[in-house]
């Protein structure tokens, strides 16, 4: 908090005739340029945010002997590919990555499709019990996953799904947040007249969903998809209960094995952590802007 005062002093006082925001919206503070102090703080914060990731790569490129010395290494060594290979084969990271891709992919597709359907119904259609059902959806967002984990485990055990990927996919296939997110988006983004016009033309509800709702919802579907993918990829609590390191683990479960001394070599552990993080980092480099936009959009509407 105290860091704010100097930044304010650096910023020019009394804005000269406020320009309109780029999109015609008046945006608070936007007309004020950040001063040197602002950049300095932000750069420090960026370094803190990125350093552990960079250091993961540095540690993964060294050998265990070097990591046991003081001071710790600050620059890359030559063992990266060797360590990645050991993590890939010995710790089964290859299989784990494939499993995680299947799990996160299925959950993403399911969540996006089901959320869009339900969100559309809640936003634009009329039916009995609509408000009660919507309240139920919002209420479920507050329920912690711990509360259902014991019976879920019993169900999975009874169905003999332990160590099978559907044990992780099915319970997470729908999301209350997703339904709410799509509803909020479609209320504004989908003109009711468009649906009525399609109905006058004799289109069935399924046709309307396919030809009107999905195209209108596409931007929000993309954002929800990316957020869901990140969440599903990183999910930890339920996978570690439902899956084991020796069965068909997700990356997170496999990493737990590494951390618990499954593999004693620190540099290999870091190589595994790197492997588990890289796919999402790639997603971030490609779609970072959209993910940022999605989180900010969800924040204002939620």
């Amino acid at each position: 908090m105290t860091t704010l005062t100097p930044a304010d002093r650096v910023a020019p006082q009394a804005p000269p005739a406020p320009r309109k925001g780029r999109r015609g919206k008046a945006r608070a503070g936007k007309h004020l340029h950040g001063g040197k102090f602002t950049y300095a703080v932000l750069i420090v914060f960026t370094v803190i945010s990125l350093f552990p990731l960079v250091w993961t790569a540095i540690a993964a490129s060294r050998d265990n002997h070097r990591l046991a010395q003081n001071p710790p290494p600050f620059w890359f060594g030559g063992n990266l590919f060797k360590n990645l290979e050991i993590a890939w084969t010995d710790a089964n990271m290859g299989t784990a990555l494939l499993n995680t891709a299947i799990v996160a992919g299925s959950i993403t597709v399911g969540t996006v499709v089901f959320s869009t359907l339900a969100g559309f119904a809640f936003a634009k259609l009329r039916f009995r019990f609509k408000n009660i059902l919507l309240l139920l959806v919002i209420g479920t967002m507050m329920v912690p996953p711990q509360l259902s984990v014991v019976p879920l485990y019993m169900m999975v055990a009874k169905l003999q799904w332990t160590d099978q990927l559907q044990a992780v996919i099915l319970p997470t296939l729908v999301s209350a947040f997703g339904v709410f997110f799509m509803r909020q988006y479609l209320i504004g983004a989908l003109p009711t007249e468009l649906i009525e016009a399609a109905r006058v033309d004799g289109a069935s509800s399924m046709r309307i969903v396919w030809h009107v709702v999905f195209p209108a919802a596409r931007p929000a579907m993309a954002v929800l998809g990316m957020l869901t993918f990140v969440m599903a990829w990183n999910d930890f609590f339920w996978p570690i209960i439902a899956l084991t390191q020796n069965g068909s683990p997700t990356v997170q479960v496999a990493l737990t094995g590494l951390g618990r001394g499954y593999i004693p070599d620190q540099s290999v552990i870091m190589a595994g952590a790197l492997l588990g993080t890289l796919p999402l980092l790639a997603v971030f480099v490609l779609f970072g802007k959209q993910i940022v936009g999605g989180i900010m959009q969800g924040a204002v509407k939620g």
Partner: protein
Amino acid sequence: MSGTTSKSGTAAPLSEGGAAPRRVGGGSSGPVRSERRRRLYRWDLKWSPYAFVAPFFVFFLAFGLFPLLYTGWASLHQVELTAPNDMEWIGLRNFSRLMEDEFFWNALRNTLTIGVLSTVPQLLIALGIAHLLNYKLRGSMFFRVAILTPYATSVAAATLVFVMLFGRDIGMINWALGQVGFGPVDWENGKWTSQLAVSTIVVWRWTGYNALIYLAAMQAIPNDLYESAALDGATRWQQFVHVTIPSLRPTILFTVVVSTIGATQLFGEPLLFNRGGGASGGANHQFQTLGLYLYEQGWVNLHLGRASAIAWTMFLILLLIGAVNWLVGRRLRKSS
């Protein structure tokens, strides 16, 4: 998709009941066909909303609501992981034993302190960063993406890295402390130091995310508010305190609730911060959280009934926190 099944399921009985209009339509096929289409149209209008929300509720009932209630049922029984179908009714004994269990109270205290240690700095720093990001900046999108990157890092990967950074003899953090003259800190074994270290991981992963949420809310504040404040002679700091913070109140409350829920469920960080493995949260249970204690009772000690009781206790605590938040929020609204 389940949409088609539920539609055809409801279509059959209705078509029998809808025989009456056919007589009115007479013999010719044209009106009958259009009548049928009209009826189809009405069913479609009436039932497809249910078909659209059905998938969510089917999955929710099977994997959300049923387990939720069943947890309550199981918490009143003695159930072991080795034979989950043998349930012996013991009433509230799981709960009363929890109340007498020092490890439960220890876990509750730890959850509370780690929760405060992680949530308060996280939200304060996020507020500051959001304020800075709200200036007109070169490369503002770069900063936004960069500070959000930890959010893309999994609990497991992040904790493994921080375990190394917090190492006692060869960790980067102790090395840096040594450079400025502080002796090595035993991050894993001290009570406060280990809790601070676990909290650091949480703060690192979530501050950027919260900063973006604050930034979004800041950009929605109308400029006139700042202009009139400036006309009244308010400094930038006074504007921040008297315009920005009050406008952000609902958002702040929202992030407090969300982070509190997250803090109550803390699990992965303390599990993996314990290098020896196991769910004890350190040699002296010094950083065992409620989530970890639940896992230990259920999947290490195999007492599923007790684990269920812990789950319901956590839920009650969350409801309590929610109620307090709501009351505080109402107080704040009244006072403003």
